[in-house]
């Protein structure tokens, strides 16, 4: 591993990464923007010091496991029309590289990308969306929670209990409708399957985050965001997930889309199927 000026590259490797500014940091790691030799923007997740190498390495391990499981599913449906409905790989980052920089305090660095994303500015943490004065409209919140339930159910099917479902750890790519759980370093493998209580907690947490996304930085209560029957049904379902949860994420995901499909099919409802552009409430 060698750092040359502003460029950092692996000796003998093709990849070269131009290191840029810090975009975020916490007690365990720093995130820096970098650019690879195709011009694609990536993130360097750099351990704060060597004692946090294990956390970053765990993240790398889980990302490797997730893509392995996702690839198996994609391969099994590749020749069918079902492949567009799976693509679980869009729900977690791509691990491009992982290594220890011995001349930088022996700290571990993960090089992380987002599939089909060329510019990092198109990736927005959920916490940033909460800062908007009015929050997002209901159809926008619907694709967020739908994608969240999808990645949660996939993780649970892999016997992975997600350690961090929070506004800081969920990223949105509005133009592509991607919802990504970023850091998996706090996850746990549950070989006998995820306990029902933990499944329910993950669903409750996700639903609460989405309700917050609807309100944003306003003082509104959630039932003040709509006076429409269809919208009330939708809100009621999300609130139920937030308060009661469900013991099976796949079932929650399925029931959610059954509801959305019924709302779209209802001629009296304003809900429409098809791509809904990311929209803040007015």
């Amino acid at each position, binding site marked *: 591993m060698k*750092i040359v000026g502003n460029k950092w590259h692996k000796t003998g490797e093709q990849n070269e990464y131009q290191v840029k500014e810090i975009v975020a940091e916490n007690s365990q790691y*720093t995130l820096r923007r970098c650019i690879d030799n195709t011009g694609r923007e990536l993130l360097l997740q750099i351990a704060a010091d060597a004692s946090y190498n294990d956390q970053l390495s765990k993240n790398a*391990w889980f990302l490797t496991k997730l893509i392995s499981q996702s690839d198996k599913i994609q391969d099994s449906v590749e020749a069918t029309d079902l492949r567009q409905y799976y693509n679980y790989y869009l729900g977690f980052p791509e691990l491009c590289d992982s290594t220890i*920089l011995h001349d*930088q305090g022996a700290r571990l660095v993960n090089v992380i990308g987002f599939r089909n994303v060329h510019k990092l500015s198109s990736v927005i943490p959920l916490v940033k969306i909460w800062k908007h004065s009015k929050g997002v409209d209901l159809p926008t919140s619907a694709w967020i929670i739908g994608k969240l339930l999808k990645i949660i159910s996939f993780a649970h099917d892999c*016997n992975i209990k997600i350690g961090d479902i929070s506004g800081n750890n969920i990223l949105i790519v509005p133009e592509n409708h991607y919802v990504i759980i970023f850091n998996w370093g706090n996850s746990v493998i549950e*070989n006998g399957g995820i306990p029902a209580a933990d499944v329910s907690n993950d669903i409750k947490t996700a639903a609460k985050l989405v309700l917050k996304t609807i309100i944003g930085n306003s003082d509104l209560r959630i039932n003040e965001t709509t006076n429409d029957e269809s919208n009330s049904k939708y809100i009621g379902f999300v609130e139920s997930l937030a308060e009661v949860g469900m013991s099976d994420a796949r079932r929650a995901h399925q029931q959610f889309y059954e509801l959305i499909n019924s709302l779209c099919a209802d001629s009296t409802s304003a809900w429409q199927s098809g791509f809904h552009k990311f929209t803040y409430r007015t």
Partner: protein
Amino acid sequence: MGREIFTRSLYRMAKTSFDVGEKDVTAKSYSQAYSTGKLDPLVDPAGFGVIRLSLPRVEQISNGSKYRLTVGTPLPIETRVDTTGSMGDNVDIAMRVLPDAFESWTEVLEGYDIQVATGIFGDHKDRFPLCRPQFEMEAAKIVKQLTLMVPERQGHDTPEDPDIGIFGGAYLTRAYINRIGLKGYDFTVTDAPGRGMIDQKQLKRVFGQDVFEKVKQNGHKFNENNTIDLKDVWVDLLDRAHAFVLLVESSYKRFWIEHVGKDRVVVLPNTEVLPQVQAAIIGLTEGSLLPTDMSSFLKKVISNYSSREIDSICESLINIPIGAQAKLPNFGKCPKKGDIFVGKPDVWDDTNLWPEEQSEEQLVHSEENTDEPTEKDDWL
């Protein structure tokens, strides 16, 4: 105190010297124990002062006024293996895999003086529910102690009694590594649940009538009249060791998770790969093995396992407290081979625990690398 370290050739010589075959390595000790009614003092939990010691090996220098560390900081690895029922051959297996064990451990514990105490446990109804050896470093002594074990191989009831050995690990061990703020390693290998509670009469029977005096002598406050809960003992064990239960049969996982915590239970496919899995656990805990390197490490040290079997082990290992040793404040400050102490390190009154002078080898290395990382060098 010596500077010999374990090697395969010394192991083979020791086996020849003690006339140890591939099977029934404990046959002589078994018949002797039954005819005398006593274990050899080396493996009798009540023998040799009850409290097991893990001490730095030093040699006197400078006309006896100073002491030099001959190998490295002692790192105790205590393992207690179930030998009841289907686990009855575990001493033979432990003997056979001993060189693999040392080689795997050395790979992840560079610079340490590895000190091993591999004992066995059975059922409280056994004549000898526990055999607990001394911490040893030399092949001959480790081989000898294994031959002195007395596995009774009885089934009795389903719960077995590792709890008694866990008590010993928690309260009857005095280790230099703890005195300098780090921890050793403790492994319980079983296919059965424990009892969850420890009978004080059993403790006196196994460790001697003055066991609680010994516990107090070792610095632990203990109320003899209370029932002893395994959960409490485990908490105290974690104060001095990175402790794990390696479960060969996963049917009893719930018992162990309830008593020791989910992050302390690792499912083992069989005891043949015990040393390699222990090495992986130790490496992950020390930070010398990263999770992303687990799979390749295990594939290297376990030659006849499929990728799927290796992945299954990795999935069990990923949940342990990774990097726990590396996060302790004094990690990285361990005395190294050749360091000089002005007096003999004493683990009882905590004197002379740290060297006054570094070894010549370390001084030369320091001189060659006089440039501290500058802000520019460490800019990431």
